[in-house]
């Protein structure tokens, strides 16, 4: 079963670049990615650029609207994701708890829809 682990956090909180804490965070991500790769559950994953770079597109009555910013202004922003192939939700949740951002942000776990 494939699960998407969506990584949310408040961009203005959490470790700042060029601090020792930030280095630790990056090291944590390195180790986590290594772990999911070696255990064979990794499908894909990527960090996203800051929410300030987001653009939202909508098509209404045939015309395209382009808006600066994310779809919804929220306290925590989507910062990246992993797609993991796990046996069940319990396994996916244990991996989610190991994602470094889980310590200051939150990880949403969603099964990926399968068309049969």
């Amino acid at each position, binding site marked *: 079963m494939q699960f998407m682990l969506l990584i949310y956090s408040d961009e203005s909180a959490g470790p700042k670049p060029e601090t020792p804490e930030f280095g630790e965070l990056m090291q944590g991500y390195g180790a986590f990615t290594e772990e999911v790769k070696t255990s064979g559950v990794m499908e894909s994953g990527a960090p996203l650029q800051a929410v300030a770079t987001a653009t939202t597109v909508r098509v209404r009555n045939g015309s395209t609207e382009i808006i600066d910013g994310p779809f919804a202004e929220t306290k925590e922003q989507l910062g990246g994701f992993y797609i993991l192939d796990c046996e069940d*939700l319990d396994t996916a949740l244990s991996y989610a708890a190991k994602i470094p951002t889980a310590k200051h942000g939150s990880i949403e776990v969603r*099964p990926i829809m399968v068309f*049969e």
Partner: protein
Amino acid sequence: MRDLELAEDVLQDAFVAALQHWPRHGVPAHPRAWLLRTARHKAIDRFRRDANFQLKRTEMEILTELESGAMPDDFDEAIEDDRLRLVFTCCHPALSEQARVALTLRTIGGLTTTEIARAFLVPETTMAQRLVRAKRKIKGAGIPYVVPAPHLWPERLNSVLAVIYLVFNEGYAATSGDQPTRAALCDEAIRLGRILLELVPREPEAAGLLALMLLHDSRRDARVDSTGHLVTLELQDRSLWNLQQINAGTRLLRRTIDRDRVGPYQIQAAISAVHARAGNHDATDWHQVTSLYKHLYELHPSPVIALNGAVALSFAAGAEAGLLALTELNGQGALEHYQPFHAARADLLRRAGRAQDAAIAYRRALVLTRNVAEQQFLEARLQELLQ
């Protein structure tokens, strides 16, 4: 079997078959084994019936396993394992609390949707939807139908205990509606507690929870008077307490506490046992109750526990000492909207002879009360004070 819905369906099929078969042919020598074997056949039937659909890989595997597999040596064990899996699945923390309670009552307790809806004062369609949504989440979210791995065990067991205690409290405290005790829910929670303890006999908190429920429930007949009004512990007719339940709860607790793995349910049961031992309110060992609350607060710091501790202290060391503890507790006004805080404070002020302050506190508590019986109780106390 790894599929909750399938397990539930085929067991139900097996029970239906038993109802048709047993009266005619007599109860088989090993009823449990008969049920399990029948359930297995029913599962195979179901898969065959679905054969015109494309069988999913896992279902194919289960079918092969079912058709070729020898019966397990110990039927009882197999059934127990299956029930334990059900318990943990129904109480999985990925489900909402409401869904956990409803699913547990439906699947483990065997209550009908109508019965559960009535107990929780919601329309039957609402409860039916809640159950359907919960089952859909189990399937869709990939909640496993397994006994959790050892590292997850403590957290998951806590979730199971919390669900059972929630059922009990819903019956015992009845936060809304005009029935002070919805006895059926208490009975059901105690039954669930017994099932759980049979499944995990080595877990002291499972025993602690059962002891706690038995001890609380022993006061059922004394908690409400003939007019349906709530009677506080202090004024209860202790001859109405159920001695058999008190003894059962106390015995269970004594066996458990020896094991030296103390948790919040065991401590709460111990507090209840101190009350059960006392011939009357004044004879209660309030010093012990106070120290048990202190211990409980260390494990689980919450305002409710501190509040109860302050009330116990007031009986051990006087109303003024209790009031002082309450004032400290409300520090930043965190309990301003908490009904039990004002009810407890009103009572302490009354006992301290500060009638005017007590009346204000009773009125504040009344505004925050939803339960009719409790409103009547507070109103009566207020009227006594004003005379």
